């Protein structure tokens, strides 16, 4: 089982879109795949048409009154399950803080699922918090979508520093350019000259209306626009990530 965390401090940069599309592609190839929507906004749950509701909420999951397994819902796609978001996840930080070994709790919760899934994608909330710390520790790979702008690169540096402080293996951090607009000179320049201190994948996800339309269709891009530029980019991205993971 490989755990892939899709993470960034910033919101609205294609984090959930990446988690949903990559998970769909993994499942479509036959890998047993789970997405855990950890973001209380519940965008991943929305894309899969699953209500953002977990019985007994986050506290139930953390205290073991409700096992993670019981919260799993089947999606409309073969080999792909989801643990939905819940509004109570907004307090996840505080709840984690109250328990022992609070930084490794998510890893412990996921452990029993090791035999059931090949990939678990964590769609993380945009913040620096105990939840992020947990997901970064649990993950085999931390995928950081980054918009090719100066400010986003600055955020990337902050994430790298944060991981360093947590003593997280630098090799786990993998970034790719998201919402890349080839018409913009700055985007083009940054994509052509990516930062050297962190692993940047060759594939960029374009700024494309098909990605935005995921919210209209409530489906992963390859389902409703299989031949689109965006779908092909996600396929190429998954191929790169898979090679690193296996």
């Amino acid at each position: 089982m490989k755990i892939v965390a899709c993470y960034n401090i910033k919101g609205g940069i294609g984090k959930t879109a990446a988690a949903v599309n990559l998970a769909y592609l993994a499942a479509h190839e036959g890998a047993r795949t789970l997405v855990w929507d950890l973001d209380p906004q519940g965008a991943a749950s929305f894309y899969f048409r699953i209500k953002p509701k977990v019985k007994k909420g986050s506290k139930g999951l953390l205290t073991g009154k409700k096992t993670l397994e019981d919260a799993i819902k089947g999606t409309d796609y073969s080999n792909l399950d989801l643990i939905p978001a819940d509004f109570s996840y907004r307090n996840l930080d505080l709840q984690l803080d109250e328990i022992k070994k609070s930084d490794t709790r998510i890893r412990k919760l996921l452990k029993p699922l090791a035999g059931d899934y090949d990939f678990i994608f964590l769609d993380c909330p945009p913040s620096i918090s105990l939840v992020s710390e947990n997901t970064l520790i649990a993950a085999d790979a931390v995928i950081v979508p980054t918009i090719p702008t100066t400010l986003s690169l600055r955020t990337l540096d902050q994430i790298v520093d944060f991981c360093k402080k947590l003593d997280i293996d630098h090799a786990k951090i993998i970034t790719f350019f998201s919402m890349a607009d080839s018409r913009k000179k700055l985007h083009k320049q940054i994509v052509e000259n990516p930062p050297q201190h962190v692993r940047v994948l060759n594939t960029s996800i374009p700024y494309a209306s098909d990605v935005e339309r995921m919210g209209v269709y409530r489906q992963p891009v390859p389902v409703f626009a299989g031949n689109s530029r965006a779908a092909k980019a996600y396929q190429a991205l998954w191929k790169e990530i898979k090679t690193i993971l296996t």
Partner: protein
Amino acid sequence: MKSLHNAQFVLAQQTDSDAIFTLLQQEFALYETDHTRLKRHYLDSFDWRMYRRNYVCTWHETASKRTKSRDGIFFIHDKKTGSSICELPLNSVPRFSKDVNHQTYRKLLDDVLGIRALMTVAVLTVKRKQLLILNEEHKTLVLLQVEHYAIQKPSDSKQPAGRLIVCPVRGYEKVFKRVMQLITGQLKLPRVHETLLDEVLAITGQAPDSGKSAVNCGLKRSFNTWEAERILLQQLFGVMQINEPGLREAIDTEFLHDYRVAVRRVRSMLGQIKHVLPDNLLTYFKREFSWLGSVTTPTRDLDMYLLKFDGYVQSLPKELQQHLEKFRLFLQRHWKIEHARLCRVLDSKRYRKLAGEWQKLLTNVDMPLLEEPSQQGQAQEIVNAAKPASIVARQRIWKLYKRILKEGGSITPQSHDEDLHELRKSCKKFRYLIEFFQAYYSGKSIKKLLKTLKQLQDNLGDFQDLCVQIGQLNGFAEQMQQEGLADTRTIMAMGVLVEKLNERKMALRAEFGRRFESFTQPENKAAFVEALQVQQLEGVTE
């Protein structure tokens, strides 16, 4: 991933998807898909290994008119619950576990199939309509499939009954329960009693028989030697016949292996149970079966190299591993040549004559007992034919046992490899006879002896294989050079391989003493003497 149990119902002729739709739409929002057609290939090994382990393996092929493409999906289902264990896109029917590019499923197949191949055992055309039960967010909560089937065999007029398959979605069990209530309560559809595969096999007249290559003796105590031998030889001939098509098609290497084992057992029987057939017949069949054994050897040898090839590669230092690939190509090329040659042999007049004569002998119940021996000499030739099989077999088995003790006991660290080979052959003959006539001995003692015998045979077998391989590898290297297939690095890699095989050979040789000692332990010998009731054997003394 937790797999959920689906529920399957028999569709009565008057019940169609419309009736189900009408019923369910009273409570649920539904979406009905168009009819789709798919071809379902049921897959299993020749000896039904998947079926016997309660797996149903299928490969579905759907044709898309729009994209003019064909997509395939490979499934493994639990035979008892119908739940899906594996759903994997695959563009062609997988043959071996290595064709499945998913670690978990590949391991599952590997554990069950070993080196056996998957073959298509039945093909079904499925006409399917799907009903999706949706919530207000248009999320599927339960999936219903209405399926009608046609077995792809033109002569079959009977077809399996259609089925309604209700598939739950994880996390929405309440809706599934309600749907089940409606279907059983209102439509009163009966549940299916057997898997669709079982139904298909019943119609096509196939039986998942695991013992196709086994000899199931079933000898009576009252049998004379000819009666017992005829039954055993008939069974062995049956094994040869059922393996022949798979051997020709090269479905997997076990067909040739089982065929050769049957031939070897026939030879053992002819050679060991003496004075049953007249000399002229015996000489002819011994010669011809020996020929059959030898013409199948080159293909089997190459099979063995190819089966062990990945292990060979792994045994080499990393930097040399890639250089062995040319050797693989060489083996594959020569395998094709040898296999084609073998198929020509099986089509030859000589083989057809042998098969015909053999069949004629085995179908003649009275041969050779009713033949009036005109001369004293001829009577001697078949002197054992009318004697009780249990006595004749026991005498021979005891003799072979003593031979093994003698041959094995005289082996020293200085003995030639040939001596171990001779012992190996004696052990094989001994083992075959015990297996043929097992009905005549008490089970437990023999089983214990067979266990230690098998360990000894494994040692001797592996040792002999290595002797042959080391000898052949040097010849292959020369041949490859002549054929322009080998460069210096390939030859070097093969040289290192020979060294590795030599090391293994030495280790096996060192192990021999311990294995033989275990076989000859006094308690094993005592158990064997007891099982064989040696003291009662006329003319046999310990």
